């Protein structure tokens, strides 16, 4: 039909014109900055009238020799390992529970989902008071049992734990939404067959439900991993990455290097590394999408 109305060339013109506004903005704020980060990462930071010059891989060498960088990467791994499995298990539990007929289901669902709608800054404010030494809720409760005060966020050995617990509280309900969607799309005849056979519920869950939820688990896994590299708002409120970088994470460190020390070249280098991590995760996700199709 459209052929008759003006043909293929007109189609191409219309297509590009429709795309143009979005393309300009995407090029300006996504594609150009990716390339600019790559370019800036092999140049020096301009200082005191000294323009930036090509320095090859010097910034990357600096990164490899930067103890704070390694500390931050280690923290990111701890943060990911601490938050992801716990969030996934809880999300799965929540979804299975909401999917059943339980008393006050609407209220239970509301309780699980509410943390996801709050901004991280607000969540951090609330939790800050739990962790405050002596006056905070945690220490007050512990005092009832005669335990000593503890500076939870000021102690390098407990600070990551505090961040992890709070993040799991905020994230689990969000991931349970995807599990809930998947559970509601499971074929009902499976359950009926299991009921006729008299299969125990736990066996059914382990042998049937869990494998069928695998695509969702993989989807959540990749997203939770990506999130563990992007979630740094809480650090601004709770710890500023301290004490002594014990709770510093990659994106927060990047922010400090850029806007605290004005070391633009090093910030660009850290950006390139973060982009590389995200790219690897994206490739993993593409592999998973292929597999999802296979499941269907």
């Amino acid at each position, binding site marked *: 039909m459209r052929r008759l109305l003006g043909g293929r060339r007109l189609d191409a013109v219309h297509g590009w014109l429709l795309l143009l506004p979005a393309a300009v903005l995407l090029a300006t704020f996504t594609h150009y900055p990716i390339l600019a980060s790559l370019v800036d990462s092999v140049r020096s930071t301009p200082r005191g009238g000294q323009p930036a010059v090509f320095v090859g891989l010097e910034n990357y060498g600096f990164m490899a020799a930067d103890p704070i960088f390694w500390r931050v990467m280690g923290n990111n791994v701890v943060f990911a390992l601490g938050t992801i499995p716990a969030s996934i298990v809880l999300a799965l539990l929540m979804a299975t529970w909401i999917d059943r007929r339980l*008393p006050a289901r609407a209220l239970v669902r509301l309780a699980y989902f509410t943390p996801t709608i709050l901004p991280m800054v*607000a969540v951090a404010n609330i939790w800050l008071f739990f962790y405050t030494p002596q006056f905070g809720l945690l220490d007050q409760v512990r005092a009832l049992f005669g335990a000593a005060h503890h500076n939870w966020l000021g102690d390098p050995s407990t600070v990551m734990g505090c961040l992890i617990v709070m993040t799991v509280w905020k994230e689990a309900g*969000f991931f349970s939404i995807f599990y809930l969607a998947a559970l509601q799309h499971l074929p009902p005849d499976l359950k009926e067959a299991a009921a006729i056979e008299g299969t125990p519920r736990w066996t059914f869950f382990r042998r049937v439900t869990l494998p069928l939820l695998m695509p969702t688990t993989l989807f959540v896994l990749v997203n939770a991993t990506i999130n563990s590299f992007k979630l740094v708002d809480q650090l601004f409120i709770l710890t500023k990455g301290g004490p002594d970088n014990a709770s510093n994470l990659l994106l927060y460190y990047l922010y400090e290097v850029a806007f605290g020390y004005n070391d633009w070249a090093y910030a660009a280098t850290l950006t390139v590394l973060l982009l590389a991590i995200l790219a690897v995760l994206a490739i993993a996700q593409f592999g998973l999408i292929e597999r999802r199709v296979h499941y269907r």
Partner: protein
Amino acid sequence: MENAAALLLAVLWILPLAYAVWAAFHPPEYATRFDLTAPLTLGNFQRAWAVAPFARYIVNTVLLVTMVLAAQFVLCTLAAYAFARFAFPGRDLAFALVLVQILIVPEVLLVENYTTLSRLDLVDTVPAIGLPYMASAFGIFLLRQTFKQVPRDLEEAAQVEGAGVLRVLLSVYVPLARPTYLAYGLVSVSYHWNNFLWPLVVTNSVETRPITVGLGIFAAPETGVSWAVISAGTLLSVAPLLVAFLLFQRQFVQSFMRAGIK
């Protein structure tokens, strides 16, 4: 047994927020004393309102969210229509380039984007907070999916009546995609109401600061505000979105579900 566990977890999950509500509505000395006879008060809210320009911050956030959503609807609709219904050279490559932004969100590129905006002399303006997000890959992706499902006959019927490209888009495609717009709108509004890092970088005055950044500054320990007042300020900041969520819980949850099925 399982029901008890589900309920226990629900209680645990709501406790932090319930606790903030307790602290906000009682005098500061009751912050850790759970005395059911404690007097109720709105004093903490008055203090918070007096200490920081919350009204201004909320206006800034509403402006930001509205501006971003309006721009996203227009830009993503046009681009999605192009991808769904037009054959043009380079279409597949262009679409792949769009998808890059789903993974690499603008806040990851905050250093270079800050540089770009300062070159454009737009730092510390509300549009600057929204600009990197306005051409949303996620929005383009969702709308393209929806537009592809529209039957061709409807479009051809409109063309026979002499409708042009934009006419067809506005009279056939957009009305049929209403549920997608609603789902995407809820996801976008909650994202930008809660966004913090990028707005923090690109704003530095009361006139532009959104509520999250305002709250972060207000709650800094060095301001010496009492815990009860911080709770009140925190509740003030989340109230609009939280109330919307309580009223339209089902729509929110369905929107996030739809958003997850990529």
